[in-house]
């Protein structure tokens, strides 16, 4: 019944919006004064961080540091995408879905007071610590695992069920991780590029990680949030909160090359996060160098 209504709504919005000649859609108001103040603060922090990073860069020359990535180590500009047809179809579907439903709903949500949204965001952020604890263990980074556990305990108790990020004020900032990172640390190749319905760009490895992370949270089932009667509503709120915190808009580039651009950037971003090509052996293999879609 509910599913039927949703399908009807989706179909109506997907077909209906394009017919009007001119449509006006109200968006959440902009807050330029606050944004600029935040940017000014960021500049100072960035300056400090940049100095630290330059210093960090120099420490790379220490004898036992990993060898620097050289331009020759960079992966080919082509991206391995054997499922391109399906991926492109899914990307288009995601774009239409986002435009018709996801984005407008998130915009409505963004009209709630910032304080309310921050509580919601913290609440769901706190739940992700469960996956971080497990995955830092799997990555054999015990300190980080304990840290995530500490964050979870502190924020769940002092932070009133995770509504407030008290741990951050105690210099325990959030450092989430997941199975996709664990698999990368274990040396698993990202595999083909994959666009996941509703969610967006990924790779086979990251997609598997994503599903497993959700499964793990479901198994742990903190406070029966994942299997209780309200699980459906909570999950929906979680997803809307996440979308509302992302300014990405499908086809804001207006470019017919957006699929290629996102694919290119996503895969490079993940490679850099995985340690800038620590699977050196893989880089000359055909599957990395092969032209996409050939």
């Amino acid at each position, binding site marked *: 019944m509910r599913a039927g209504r949703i399908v009807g709504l989706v179909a109506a919005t997907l077909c209906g919006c394009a017919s009007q000649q*001119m449509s006006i859609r109200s968006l959440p108001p902009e807050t330029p004064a606050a944004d600029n103040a935040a940017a000014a603060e960021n500049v100072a922090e960035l300056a400090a961080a940049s100095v630290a990073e330059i210093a960090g860069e120099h420490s790379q020359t220490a004898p036992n540091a990993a060898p620097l990535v050289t331009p020759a180590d960079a992966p080919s500009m082509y991206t391995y995408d054997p499922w391109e047809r399906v991926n492109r179809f899914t990307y288009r579907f995601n774009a239409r879905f986002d435009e018709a439903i996801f984005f407008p709903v998130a915009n409505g949500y963004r009209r709630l007071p910032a304080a309310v949204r921050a509580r919601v965001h913290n609440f769901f952020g706190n739940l992700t610590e469960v996956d971080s604890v497990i995955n830092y263990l799997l990555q054999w980074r015990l300190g980080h695992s304990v840290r995530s556990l500490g964050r979870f305990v502190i924020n769940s108790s002092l932070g009133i069920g995770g509504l407030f990020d008290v741990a951050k004020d105690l210099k325990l900032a959030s450092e989430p991780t997941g199975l996709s990172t664990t698999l990368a640390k274990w040396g698993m190749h990202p595999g083909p590029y994959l666009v996941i319905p509703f969610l967006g760009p990924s790779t086979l490895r990251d997609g598997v990680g994503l599903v497993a992370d959700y499964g793990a949270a479901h198994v742990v089932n903190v406070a029966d949030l994942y299997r209780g009667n309200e699980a459906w509503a909570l999950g929906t709120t979680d997803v809307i909160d996440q979308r509302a915190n992302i300014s990405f808009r499908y086809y804001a580039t207006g470019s017919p090359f957006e699929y290629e651009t996102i694919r290119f950037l996503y895969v490079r971003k993940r490679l850099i996060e995985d340690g800038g090509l620590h699977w050196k052996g893989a880089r000359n293999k055909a599957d990395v160098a092969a032209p996409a879609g050939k």
Partner: protein
Amino acid sequence: MTARIIQIALASLFLLASLVNAAEPVMPPPATGPATGLADTAALRATVFGTPPKDMAPLPETVPLAEINIALPWARPVPQVFWFDARLRVWLSAQRRAAPLAVVIAGTGGDGNTPKLAILRGALYRAGYHVLTMPSPTFPGFIVSASSTGVAGDLLQDSRDLYAAMQAIITKLPRRVQITDIDIVGYSLGGANAAVVKSIDATEGKLHIHRAVMINPPVSLFTSLTRLDNLFASSIGAGDAGVESLYRQLYAQLANLYRSSDRVEVDEDFILAAAAVELTTDAELSAAIALSFRIDLVNVFFAGDLYAGTGVVVDPQHPPRVGDSLEETARILRGKPFSEYFSRVFAPYYLKHRPNSTGKSLIADSRLEIIGDALRGDADYYAQTNSDDLILDARELAWLKDTLGSRIAVYDHGGHLGNLGDRAQIADMLDMLAGRWNVTAR
């Protein structure tokens, strides 16, 4: 978990955006040297990084915002690969009371909601204007939904299309948006478009546009873009090989920086920090400017070739369909300079459609001089530029000063748009729009 996926896409975009938005990608340092010899590292830096937040003019606490999507009747059939660009998208911030409307036009390749437009929107809204921000006629979304040719880059034709789109939008605005007067502003190429739109309106009288302010406008589109080709060739290298080697270099730099940091994600903050660390030399800053323009040119080139049927990368008989890979096309196009767009797409199209035109006349038509008389004689045209603006050479700056007389503000520093939003620029712009700007008082 969902967030991670989409955030990754977001952060990925920032990799691109740090280059695209950082530099308002219009034009290059001139081959003949900058206007005053000041186009040094400071000018390049300002161009790439923009106005520092601490120097920003006062901005309002909140600005209401609405998005308008409109189908325009004269638009050409939408090619399959542009399915998402069928309607023109603009943004409106309306006052609650009767107020003048400021229409603001983006620079080359920009959509109707660029960060620079957002700055101008905030300042104008605070000063009591309704604000309508529009994409550049070189933005692919505009080319598909609002261009009558599909071949962007002709100052007059693009501005005509812009003018027609403005009329369609303004006449359909809800009644509660009460407009007392209309002014027009544009930055970079959008500045030139704004002035030409006002001159068209002076003849046609459909909107009664009152004043126009050009912010860092080009004087000759063709020469500026040709200079940019040179900049690309000198800072990146010719063709796709140059792009690939730049990519490899950037990748290695980012990877090393990331490994030496203790960050857990390549996100917006990381990219900003990386840009601050890595973009330091003139060559690096120049490469960022040249590359960001090239990324925009790829879209213009592709759309033009598709619409004009010139067959450079698009087979006119078998245009790409919606599910087709465009990777190879993108690879070819990113190696192609503006001069090739001009000679193989733009000129063939316009020579065919504009009787008695020649290559030379097309180049002449890309100059602001086509409205020189209006700029000289009509007291409602204003301009703001910088003596170290990279897109002007000494002769062009002199022409602007000579033509506009007391109606131009020339600041010492800022490069190209690097002072857009700072206190002096905004205060002067608002004075110009209100008709109370006085050069002698400065």
